[in-house]
C-alpha cells in the first residue's frame, strides 16, 4: 500500500517550503491531522483559482479578439475546463501524483494506480488537508494550463481540433511535467525550485502556444487587417480576476494558512504591480501613450514571473522580478514577435513563455533563505536545467500531438469560416 504521508510530501507545490515548515513530517509515519484553518484557505484557494480560468481567462482573452470570435474563445475556455475536470479525475491525477511501480519509471511518470481517484478515502490526508481538497486544488492548475494556450491560436483553429489536442496535451504533456516537479519526479530531485508553477504551468503553456501558432500559420489578413482588441473592458475584468485568483494560485501553493502563504501573497501583489508599471512606463516613453492593453498585459507578465518565486523571495526581490518581467514581455510581444513573424494572437508565448522563463531564472537569484530555508540551495544552474528540459519536452511533444490532431480532424477552419467569424460559423451564435 502507498504511504499517504510520503505521497502527501511528494505531491505538492511549494514542496520545499513545506518540508522546511514541518520537518517532523518527513521523519515519522504518524498520520497528520487535518487543520481546519489550512483546509479553509485551500478550499478558498481552489475556488479562486477556478475563477482565474472561468471567467477570468475567458474575459482576458475574449476582450482581445475581434467581435466575431468572442464566443468561440469563451466556449473554448469553458469546454476545456469541463473536459480537463473529467480527464483529471480519470487519469490525470494518477499520472501526476500516483506512484509508478518502479522508481526509475516514477522519476518520469506517476503511474496508473490512482485512476478514477482510487485509494482516496474520507480519511486521506495531504499535508494537513483532506486529500479531496488537494485533488481539487491541483485540478484547477490542470485546467488553467491548457486554457492558457488558446490565446496563441485564437481566431482560426477548429473547435473539434482544440478539444482533441487539449485532451491529449493534458495527459501527455501537462500531467508528466507536473509529476517531474511536484509529484516526486526527476526535476524535483535535481533541486529545481518552482513554488507555484512557473515551469509546470507558464513555460509549458507558453512554449506549447508558440508551437501551435507557428504550425497553424497566421490569421488571414494578419499585418494588413486591423485586429485591434474589440473590448478591453472585458480584458480589464479578466486581468483583474486573474490577479485576485493568483493569490489562490501562489499563496495557495503554501498548502497552509501561514506566513509562507502571507509572503507569497504579498510578493504576488508587488511583482504584478512592478511589472504593470514597468510596461506602462516603457509604452509611455516609446509610444507616447500608455495603453490599457499595456498595463493589463504587464500585470499578467509580473504574475507569471513571480509564480515560481512567490514563497522563496522577499518583497524587494519580488519587485526586482516584476520589473524586468514587464520589460522583457513588452519586448517579446511588441518586437520579438514582429521580427520572427509568427502570429501568436494574444501573446501566450510573449507573456507566459518569456515571463515564465524570466521568473524561473530570477528565482535562482533572488531566493532568500530568511524567507524560506528551501531557498538556500537555489542555483541558477538548476533553474536553467529545469527550463531547458521543459522547453524541449513540450516543444517536441506538442508538435507531435498537433500532427496527430491534424491527421484526425484538421487544424484550421476554412477561409470563409475565418472571414465570417468563428462565433457564427462554429457555434451558430453572435454577440449583438
Amino acid at each position, binding site marked *: 500500500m502507498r504511504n499517504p504521508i510520503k505521497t502527501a510530501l511528494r505531491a505538492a507545490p511549494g514542496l520545499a517550503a513545506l518540508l522546511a515548515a514541518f520537518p517532523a513530517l518527513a521523519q515519522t509515519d504518524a498520520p497528520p491531522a487535518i487543520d481546519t484553518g489550512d483546509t479553509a484557505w485551500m478550499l478558498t484557494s481552489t475556488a479562486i483559482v477556478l475563477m482565474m480560468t472561468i471567467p477570468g481567462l475567458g474575459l482576458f482573452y475574449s476582450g482581445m479578439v475581434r467581435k466575431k470570435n468572442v464566443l468561440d474563445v469563451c466556449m473554448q475556455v469553458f469546454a476545456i475546463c469541463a473536459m480537463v475536470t473529467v480527464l483529471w479525475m480519470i487519469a490525470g491525477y494518477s499520472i501526476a501524483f500516483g506512484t509508478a511501480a518502479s522508481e526509475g519509471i516514477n522519476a518520469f511518470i506517476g503511474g496508473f494506480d490512482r485512476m478514477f481517484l482510487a485509494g482516496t478515502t474520507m480519511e486521506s490526508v495531504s499535508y494537513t488537508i483532506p486529500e479531496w481538497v488537494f485533488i481539487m486544488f491541483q485540478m484547477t492548475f490542470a485546467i488553467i494550463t491548457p486554457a492558457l494556450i488558446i490565446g496563441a491560436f485564437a481566431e482560426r483553429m477548429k473547435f473539434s481540433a482544440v478539444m482533441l489536442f487539449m485532451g491529449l496535451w493534458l495527459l501527455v504533456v501537462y500531467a508528466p511535467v507536473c509529476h517531474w516537479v511536484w509529484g516526486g519526479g526527476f526535476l524535483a530531485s535535481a533541486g529545481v525550485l518552482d513554488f507555484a508553477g512557473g515551469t509546470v504551468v507558464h513555460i509549458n503553456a507558453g512554449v506549447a502556444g508558440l508551437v501551435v501558432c507557428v504550425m497553424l500559420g497566421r490569421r488571414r489578413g494578419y499585418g494588413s487587417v*486591423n485586429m*485591434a482588441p474589440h473590448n478591453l473592458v472585458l480584458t480589464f475584468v479578466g486581468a483583474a480576476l486573474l490577479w485576485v485568483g493568483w493569490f489562490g494560485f501562489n499563496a495557495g501553493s503554501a498548502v497552509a494558512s501561514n506566513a509562507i502563504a502571507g509572503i507569497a501573497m504579498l510578493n504576488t501583489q508587488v511583482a504584478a504591480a512592478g511589472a504593470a508599471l514597468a510596461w506602462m512606463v516603457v509604452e509611455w516613453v516609446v*509610444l507616447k501613450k500608455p*495603453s490599457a492593453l499595456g498595463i493589463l498585459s504587464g500585470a499578467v507578465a509580473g504574475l507569471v514571473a513571480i509564480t515560481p518565486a512567490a514563497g522563496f523571495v522577499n518583497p524587494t526581490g519580488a519587485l526586482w522580478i516584476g520589473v524586468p518581467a514587464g520589460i522583457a514581455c513588452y519586448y517579446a510581444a511588441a*518586437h520579438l514577435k514582429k521580427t520572427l513573424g509568427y502570429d501568436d494572437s494574444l*501573446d501566450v508565448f*510573449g507573456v507566459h513563455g518569456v515571463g515564465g522563463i524570466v521568473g524561473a531564472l530570477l528565482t535562482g537569484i533572488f531566493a532568500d533563505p530568511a524567507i524560506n530555508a528551501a531557498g538556500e540551495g537555489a542555483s541558477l544552474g538548476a533553474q536553467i536545467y529545469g527550463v531547458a528540459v521543459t522547453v524541449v519536452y513540450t516543444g517536441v511533444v506538442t508538435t507531435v500531438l498537433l500532427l496527430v490532431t491534424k491527421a484526425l480532424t484538421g487544424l484550421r477552419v476554412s477561409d470563409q469560416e475565418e472571414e465570417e467569424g468563428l462565433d457564427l460559423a462554429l457555434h451558430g451564435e453572435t454577440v449583438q
Partner: protein
Amino acid sequence: MKLIIAVIKPFKLEAVREALTTAGVQGLMVSEVKGYGRQSGHTEIYRGAEYTVNFVPKIRIEIVAADDQVDRIADAIAGTARTGKIGDGKIFVLDVQQAIRIRTDERGDDAL
C-alpha cells in the same frame, strides 16, 4: 422636394438639430457613418502591430424638404456645423420625386 444629406462632426449634432428646428424643419433622420476625406484618421498600435484607421466617425443628417426651404436649411446647417477646421463635412442636395406620410397617406409637401 429635395433630399438634403449633411455629413457633420458628431459633437455638432445637437447644435445643428436646434438650428434646424429654429429654421422650421419638423422631421429628419440621423445615422452614424464612418467618413473618409481630407481629415486624416489616427494610428492604432497594440503589442507591436500598427494600423492606420482611415475612417473618422461622422454623423449623417437627412432631411426631405420643399424646394423653397432648401437654401435656408443648408445655410442653417453650414452655419452651425462650421468650425473652420478640416473635416467639417459636406451638404449634398438630391431631387425627390414623391413623399408619403405612412400614417395618413398624405403625399408631396404635405407629407413632410
